[in-house]
């Protein structure tokens, strides 16, 4: 009954409010779970780690789940991870089964979230225990593997790898940290900017800029499209939801949740990949694949259990290896940084209370998400219609205050926010990938320490190949991910050429 110690009124309030705000962010097209976590991260400063994580995990679960609302009612994915929910949810809403489709999506989200939570609970401690044995060599190769997997799954592998290394390069700006064994010398700092860039760019303003301000700039560029008016949103009052719709769908639920969890464990792969893979698998396994895309409930079940399956899975590499599973969990590193705690193989063993608290928070966030969404469907439909001209200016102000307060009031951090907001707006136009960039930026300083200290200790580059069988296995995985991705890209290009 140790977990009861976490259940303070404040802890419960933060999970509830985090999940609620997350659902609202997810339900408004153009706003994402990542944005919700980025904007609310500064609030955790005064909350302590356990309470802060309770808020952020609520935002994460709520944000991923909320995306199904506009996907079903408007045919617009609220978050990238709910893109496949549109395929069958929207046709159902069109024929007056909106409420039924929403309830199917909500239940599937709950199942996906709970299965992935079980995977997190079972696998993360085991992986961490194994990773404790890693030396700097294996730790460096794990980071390299994370970057190559992420890049390999990008739209363009070359640009994905470039983005990851660019993130590492930007993270190296500033002093070579003495506390980590560096020599305290400056590098990559333009003359005259030493005062501001001594410590490099702070992580949180960079993240808030890339995920908060950049989204607002994209909205402004597109003319801040008008939201839907309430009268255009049809929930479908006459469509009764019955549990029998899940008859024969248990395999689909478990398969899709497992795919989502597995995709979450792969570093840097987003929720959209989880839902697309789950949806494709469900369609392939179906006896009636032609009905997919025309309002088949199995499509919603696959998509929503898949994307919520990501939530627990993405925390596995974060809490066992210190490598974020996706962009949103990358932001959670910010919460740990704020509290002076380093995530990695030692985290669970050294912080059993925080680990238990996170598991309880994830469980409660999933249950709160289900309760809020299942029983307040009509209110949710109204959230979709909240005007952006009211929300976005307030979010912009929250981004500014977050960047300013993160380091006790440094105005340069606010300018960092603007710089990386513009970078985040430019990146898709230049085909750069934000997820590998962020992972590179977060893991760059650690990669440097592991690399340089390995060379200092062993005096030979061959140590990265000969240190242990784990090093060899990691090289095999790195090469396999790059070669596999290149072959897939080539096959895709040939397929397109043949189609043309």
């Amino acid at each position: 009954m140790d977990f009861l110690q976490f259940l303070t009124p404040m802890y419960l309030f933060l999970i509830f409010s985090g999940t609620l705000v997350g659902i609202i962010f997810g339900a408004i097209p153009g706003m994402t779970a990542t944005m919700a976590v980025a904007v609310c991260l500064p609030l955790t400063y005064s909350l302590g780690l356990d309470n802060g994580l309770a808020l952020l995990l609520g935002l994460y679960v709520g944000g991923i789940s909320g995306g199904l609302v506009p996907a079903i009612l408007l045919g617009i994915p609220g978050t990238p991870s709910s893109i496949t929910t549109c395929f069958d949810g929207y046709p159902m809403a069109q024929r007056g089964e909106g409420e039924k489709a929403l309830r199917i999506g909500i239940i599937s989200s709950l199942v996906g979230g709970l299965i992935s939570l079980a995977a997190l609970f079972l696998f993360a401690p085991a992986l961490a225990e194994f990773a404790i044995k890693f030396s700097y060599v294996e730790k460096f190769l794990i980071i390299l593997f994370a970057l190559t997997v992420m890049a390999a799954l990008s739209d363009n592998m070359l640009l994905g790898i470039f983005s990851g290394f660019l993130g590492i390069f930007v993270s190296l700006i500033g002093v070579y940290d003495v506390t980590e064994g560096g020599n305290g010398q400056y590098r990559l700092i333009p003359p005259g900017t030493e005062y501001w860039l001594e410590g490099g760019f702070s992580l949180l303003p960079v993240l808030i800029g890339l995920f908060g301000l950049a989204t607002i700039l994209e909205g402004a560029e597109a003319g801040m499209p008008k939201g839907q008016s309430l009268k255009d949103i049809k929930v479908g009052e006459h469509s009764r939801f019955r549990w029998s719709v899940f008859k024969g769908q248990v395999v689909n639920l478990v398969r899709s949740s497992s795919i989502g969890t597995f995709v979450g464990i792969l570093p840097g792969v987003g929720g959209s990949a989880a839902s697309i893979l789950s949806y494709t698998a469900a369609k392939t396994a179906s006896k009636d694949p032609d009905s997919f895309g025309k309002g088949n409930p199995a499509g919603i079940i696959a998509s929503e259990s898949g994307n919520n399956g990501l939530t627990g899975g993405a925390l596995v590499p974060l809490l066992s290896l210190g490598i974020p599973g996706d962009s949103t969990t990358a932001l959670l590193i910010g919460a740990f940084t704020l509290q002076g705690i380093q995530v990695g193989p030692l985290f669970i063993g050294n912080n059993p209370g925080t680990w238990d608290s996170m598991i309880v928070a994830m469980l409660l966030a999933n249950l709160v998400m289900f309760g809020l969404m299942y029983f307040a469907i009509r209110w949710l439909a109204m959230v979709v219609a909240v005007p952006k001209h009211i929300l976005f200016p307030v979010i912009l102000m929250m981004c500014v205050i977050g960047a300013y307060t993160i380091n006790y009031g440094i105005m340069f951090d606010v300018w960092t926010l603007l710089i990386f907001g513009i970078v985040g707006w430019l990146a898709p136009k230049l085909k750069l990938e934000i997820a590998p960039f962020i992972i590179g930026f977060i893991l760059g300083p650690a990669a440097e320490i592991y690399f340089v200290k390995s060379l200092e200790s062993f005096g030979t580059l061959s140590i990265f190949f000969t240190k242990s069988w784990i090093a060899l296995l990691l090289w095999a995985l790195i090469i396999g991910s790059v070669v596999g991705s290149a072959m897939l890209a080539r096959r895709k290009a040939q397929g397109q050429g043949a189609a043309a």
Partner: protein
Amino acid sequence: MADLFQVTVDFDRSHLIFPRLIGIILLLLGAAIAVSHRQAILNSGRMWAQTFGAMDKPRFIGTLILTVIYFLLMVPVGDLWPNTGLGFLICSIPFVALISILYMHERDARSLLPALIVAVVGPALVWWLFTYVFALTLP
């Protein structure tokens, strides 16, 4: 053969090893991208022309200009009342109001009133929360 991989790390210059290595990798990747995406790079002028042609310039450029002015004014205004956070509050109210108006599609009283109420209440609430509850200094 083993000598080929031998490396001696000079601690005083060890801060340059990794940045140089990453820099070289970026140059090589950049060259590979330049070769493999040469057509897209050559056509980038057209892409940018389309981007700027389709852009809602008043809203996009207006956002950038208002944001820069907001950042520039916050500290000088705050210095008039040090350690009170009033620089943030005084600058945020017109900033939120102007951005709201900029993003509106119909600027009638029915749209303006809620936006202006949010522009006053939002910053005031955040200022109170951070100054008195979280005890964090704002500009």
